[in-house]
């Protein structure tokens, strides 16, 4: 009578038993990791724009303040993109014939706004407010990354709920003095852990930043 089982049958059986225990957990863990990976959050994608506006040139090179273009950022939930008119304050004098600026000139001539492609996107059920983050000392680059070195923009942070909560649970490491909020080159000082706690004590009036109603309504 031939053997029913090959010699390696035991090994296979043990492997299967272990796999039954391990694979589901591993799959869930992999799923979690993948869902928050830069690939899935689209952090790797540099978004094309109708006009190849370079933050590297305007912010890093020329030193324009963020608020020159994003005028509403201190008062409104949205930072706002500049109206064509703002571009033309300089570009009616500079690079007036540049081909890459043709869409801007056409926009002004035809009274047709420029359609920019959105880079940082949150789900519709998240009510994010730029102005309160600015007022509380969260700098632009904390979420938007080193814009002064980015020719075209990409999403610099994962923008997952876990990432939001990370800061809402403990904002101290990210808090800046009011004067530094718009500094594109700000680096956390060595004693940020102490400074952050002092700033949080001084500026943050809400100890309940993890309430669901803070972002969802």
């Amino acid at each position, binding site marked *: 009578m031939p053997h029913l089982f090959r010699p390696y049958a035991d090994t296979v059986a043990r492997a299967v038993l272990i796999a039954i225990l391990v694979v589901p957990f591993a799959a869930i863990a992999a799923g979690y990791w993948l869902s928050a990976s830069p690939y899935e959050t*689209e952090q790797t994608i540099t978004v094309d724009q109708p006009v190849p506006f370079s933050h590297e040139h305007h912010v890093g090179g020329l030193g324009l303040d963020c608020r020159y273009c994003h*005028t*509403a950022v201190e*008062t*409104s*939930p*949205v930072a*706002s*993109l*500049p*109206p*064509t*008119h703002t571009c033309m304050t300089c570009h009616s004098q500079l690079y007036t014939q540049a081909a890459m600026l043709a869409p801007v000139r056409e*926009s*002004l001539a035809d*009274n*047709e*706004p*420029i*359609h*920019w*492609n*959105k880079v940082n*996107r949150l*789900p*519709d*059920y998240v*009510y994010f*407010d730029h*102005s*309160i983050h600015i*007022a*509380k000392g969260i700098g632009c680059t904390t979420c938007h990354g080193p814009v002064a070195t980015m020719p075209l923009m990409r999403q610099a942070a994962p923008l997952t709920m876990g990432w939001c909560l990370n800061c809402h649970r403990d904002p101290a490491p990210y808090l800046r003095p009011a004067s530094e909020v718009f500094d594109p080159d700000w680096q956390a000082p060595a004693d940020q852990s102490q400074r952050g706690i002092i700033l949080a004590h001084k*500026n943050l*009036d*809400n*100890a*309940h930043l993890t*309430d*669901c*109603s*803070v972002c*969802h*309504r």
Partner: protein
Amino acid sequence: MNKQLRLDQANMRGPPNSEVDRRAALKLFVSGAALALASCGRPAEQIVPYVEIPDGMTPGLPMRFASALPLAGYGRGVIVTSVEGRPIKVDGNPRHPASLGSTDVFAEATVLSLYDPDRSQAPYSGGRVQDWSAFEAALQPRLDKARARHGAGLALLTGRITSPTLIAQIEAFTKALPQVKWYRYEPSEDDAIRNGAILAFNRPATLLPRFADARVVLTLDADPLGAGPEQIRFARDITQARRTHVPDQSLRLYAVEPAWTLTGALADHRLALRPELVRNVAIEIARSLGASVPELKGPPEAEHFAKAAAADLTARQGGGLVLAGPRQPPEVHALCHWINNELSAPVDFIAPVDPLNIGGIASLKSFVADARAGAIETLMILGANPVYDAPGDLAIADCVAAVPFSAQLGLYRDETAARCTWHLPLTHVLEGWSDIRAFDGTASIVQPLIRPLYDSRTAHQIMALLSNATGPSSFDMVRGYWQQAGKHGGDFEDWWRQTLQDGVVADSAAAKISLPAPQMPEVAPVSGGENFTLAFAPDPSLFDGSFANNAWLQECPKPFTKQVWGNALHLAESDAQSLGVVDGDMVRLVAGKAVLEAPVLVRQGQASHTVATTLGYGRAGAGSLGTAVGFDVYRLRPSDSPWALADVSVSKIGGRQNLLLTQHFFELEGEAKDLQPRFALADLAKKPDLGLSKPGGNPATLYPPHDYDTYEWAMVIDTAACIGCNACVVACQAENNVPIVGPDEIAVGRDMHWLRIDDYVIGGKPGFSPVPCMHCEHAPCEPVCPVAASIHDSEGLNLQVYNRCVGTRFCQSNCPYKVRRFNFYGYADGEEYKSFGDDIVKAVFNPDVTVRGRGVMEKCTYCVQRISRARRAAEKDHRKIHDGEIVTACQAACPTRAIAFGDLSDANSRINALRAEPQAYALLGELGTRPRTTYLARLENPNPDFGKAQS
């Protein structure tokens, strides 16, 4: 039929795609899973900034503009919120005398009408869409001809117009062409009131009651708290005069009426009397003041009532006031003027705001005569719909059709448009410039919030067209008028800007006039006949029918009956018994040649031999939502007495109709007095403990305690001030993107209102309790949610996290207050009722509130978006939120300020003071839920001598 049975039927109906079998379902599941796995990320989104940003605008922040909205031709001042150029919310204008910062259902629903996809979008004639130049070309030869004859053959037919600019335009036009006829009528006509003043004073005058100075008010078939252009103001004044807890200083309200009105529900003493007999009470009051009129003989309850009211009225020299309603004939109004004069009643008189010196019905009759005689060749109907809403006996439809060239300017291609040779689209009140006067004469500029959505025109533009004035825009015309007429003292630009910002033209209220002593009219008591009287009233939801295509209003539960999507014939209990009918039974109503077959709704406390019903239903051309809902009673309306039809016979016929109600599925047995306790003012002073379940009470509980270390939000609702007008219900709907579900879903017991108004009948008297979410500290909905979608926040708000909700509905089952609402379908998100789902309707959504999808639970949030906005503003300034800084949508709308909201952790807050009132109570407080929403009990101020006067 009880609610359980309805729900069983709902379950039997099955899901919408019931043809999907198991195999198909599996296929769909697999393909769906495959698609999800193969999906390639989120769709791209764009940001579109301005080319040139409008002055004063900050992207992402709402803008507010003062304007005014018409109702029955009179304006109510409003402040409209616009987001990214879309008007989304109407609030009251505190500076405006007809608003005082509050709104009514019609004002709140106006934004939805703006985005109504059924609105007329282009001129229409000869069965096809035309353009304006074709109309102008067709009109021009007729105008030239009429001009050659000083306007003979040319006629205007309008509703009530109080716009100073438009009146000036029409007057200039009729002055240039004296033969032009201007007819004017209004479906909610008040000719009897006007004629009563003429009878008493030999000149027209409008009575304005000063409720603040009144101590005893008797309404005779009048409804100052009911729907109408004065509702908000009168409701504020009356409830404010009732706020004090001193019985002698509080306004005591007596009401005599055939069917329930909001005034009757608030009244301390109410008498149900058929419309004809109401005059007997007035005569008895006059007799007690010394008039030589015959004594009232029966019915006994009317005698007692009249004697007690007369004694009370005369006892308060200068504080007694009698008001008669439009259903009463001019003699009764004249008699009331005489009584008020004898009582030195707190009333003022102004010259009528409506300048046309002719009654509406008389004007309409002369139109009929002229049209029949062929004297009208060219007819312009501006903003009116007479074919639907003129009294039926005038047969207006034939008259309009008989005119060779008729053009109607209207928002919808309605019944009148179908009879006219031309229909022209009218610019919505939120789209065009105009002006309007309030009931007291105060003028406001109507500011547009958005450019016209369609190729429409305003009445000003049409008048300019008729006058051959080309070019001026409505803005130029309105501004031009005020440049000439306004009291701007030379600096017009400043004056204009200030007036626009205020929403009120300063010092424009009509001046008080002094009148001679009123004459005593010839009036004698009558006795009622054997037959029924049909009493008409404006509908509390649709008013005169012009709002019939507004889904929010169609689904707004009417006070008392809670009926939606339809009307009914209201019958007294005794009459229903003798006819052998119950709710929903069809009856035949015969009046002369007119016959109406309609369902019955039995009403406790209605006068016998009275059939009551409301206008506004049975539209043939309202639009996809409002057409063929309910039955039309305009065709029964007699022109000689537009609010009552005497000598009607009613008989039962076979058949039933399912009345769509949102409450009253079963009778409460005794609990009502615990749910809505009521006290007399006199008792309140005597008893320190009223035996109520007090706010903040802390029965033993297994719930873990919460630590509150920040704001603690709470609401107090004063049921003594609630008049049941529904303004809060529609305001909540507008603010919070609450969808409508449609009549089919209502029929199976579903509806979505976050705020409902409970109506409890105790001892035959209804009373209203608005019920939003209680935001319980020990919330029964929270522990049963398997996914923590129903969860507490640190400020005590009971949150519903939509993106977590999986739709188990456990929370709804466990909520003792039944305030949670479930999206059985995508009511706002893909499965909307009829045209409510069209793309343009989405423009009404508030961007600060999530639009909930199918399978998600929702409920009142205390307007958490407003709390958040205030919190962020306060935190930017490093301060606490001020008491009163947060105003919820329902609170802002409430004309009587019955709703208060604030922070319990602030010991000095108003909300804490209100919760400490002796009549404060927690609804179902004995359950230990510790609700944050608490109530103030209903307070009544009955006459202690009432009934003692029987002799």
